[in-house]
């Protein structure tokens, strides 16, 4: 608890210091300098490791036997190969889908319990965000290497790509509207061109991120949900196959990037 208090305090101080720069073209690089003094996401990572190792649920077991794709209990390097096909469920899953699966099958939680608080709100902390921070941090320094070997992986990628280009709804927006040109911005927010390999790599390798504007570690699920809202699309279900497909497309676009998250962002 004291750790979390410190994290919030640190975040607030940093937010004040940083906001003056927030509109700079290289804003995320400016945040990167703060990393030397510590990223509040580290508190989340520690918290997440504890959650991973703590016995919980009706079965009173920890998540330590969860198979994230590299065998039961292997956390290191798991994230850079996700999303991936899992034969035990005959399906492609992203990290959060897999985590929910483990919470249900190992710990015995119901789906509702396992997905209850995917994103923290003031006064309502999420277990999933710190777990995601812990697991992703264990891939730091490794190269993004989503495989696309299994037909279902290939299929998820192709569907994700289609979804990326899918323009619809009241505003005719698709991901492609906001993320297919260099050096554009909405208001003062820079829009990465996700069709450009370098930019896609830089973006993907820095999620999840501790968001200064929100004072929380946010996952890719959360980032995409905000974009989908701005896109005027309907509300996406948490940890659904549609989001996994989009994530697969983005992860593959970032192939070869040196993974560097949880990062720190606006």
């Amino acid at each position, binding site marked *: 608890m004291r750790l979390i208090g410190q994290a919030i305090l640190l975040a607030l101080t940093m937010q004040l210091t940083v906001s003056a720069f927030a509109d700079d073209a290289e804003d995320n690089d400016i945040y990167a300098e703060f990393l030397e003094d510590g990223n509040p996401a580290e508190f989340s990572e520690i918290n997440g490791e504890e959650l991973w190792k703590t016995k919980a649920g009706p079965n009173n077991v920890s998540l330590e036997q969860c198979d994230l794709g590299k065998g039961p209990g292997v956390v290191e390097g798991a994230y850079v190969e996700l999303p991936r096909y899992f034969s035990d469920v005959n399906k492609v899953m992203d990290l959060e889908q897999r985590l929910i699966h483990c919470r249900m099958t190992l710990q015995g939680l119901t789906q509702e319990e396992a997905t209850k608080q995917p994103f923290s709100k003031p006064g309502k902390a999420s277990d999933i965000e710190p777990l995601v921070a812990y697991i992703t941090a264990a891939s730091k320094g490794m190269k993004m290497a989503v495989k696309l070997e299994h037909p279902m992986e290939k299929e998820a990628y192709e569907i994700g790509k289609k979804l990326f280009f899918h323009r619809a709804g*009241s505003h*005719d927006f698709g991901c492609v509207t906001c993320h297919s*040109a260099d050096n554009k911005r909405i208001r003062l927010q820079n829009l990465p061109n996700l069709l450009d390999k370098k930019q896609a790599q830089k973006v993907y390798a820095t999620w999840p991120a501790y968001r200064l504007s929100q004072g929380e570690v946010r996952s890719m699920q959360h980032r995409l949900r905000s974009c989908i809202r701005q896109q005027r699309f309907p509300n996406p279900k948490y940890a659904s196959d549609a989001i996994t497909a989009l994530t697969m497309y983005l992860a593959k676009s970032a192939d070869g990037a040196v993974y560097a998250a949880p990062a720190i962002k606006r």
Partner: protein
Amino acid sequence: MKKLMVLIATIAAAGCSSSTVEKDYDAEVVRLINSDFKSKGSVQIEKFVQQDEVQKLCSQDGELSQDALASIRDSQMKTVKYPADDQYLGDWEKGIKIANNGKGGQFSDKPGSVSGGNCFGCHQITKEEVAFGTMGPSLYQYGKLRGNSKEIYQYTWAKIYNAQASIACSNMPRFGHAGILTEEQIKDLMALLLDPESPTNK
């Protein structure tokens, strides 16, 4: 999913080459939108599944032919409704508020709330508003540079009403055609861009 696997297995067993297993990813996209999104208020899933002709064409990865682009422009030009009273300019002060308002169409919006145009999201328009985006061209001094001819009025009205009447697959929303903005709101935005007294032209 299961059906697909069975299909693949059957085809593989029959010894067909894998290239015959052309999957219909469009159908999968429709299936996933239906299963993985929730309608809320004015944001209904059907609108995302049933793209109109223009949205379908503009969702392709790759360039469209000149003919296809021209036919989009033609069809979209036909949708433009000019003001019935032939009055194009409303109140630029109201126009600024509409240009600043990004509400409307989001699943987080209260149903029935008035939508804005969020023009500043994509355009520089006045000197005073510095938090402007760059997805579209700067419109600062728009009226001063373009003049006040009926032609310019009609071009600008059509652009706001249906941006694709002049540029197929434009990233700018079709504000009038899609019913995001009312005729009165468009008049106020016209005044923001074209009234000589508007800060746009100072």
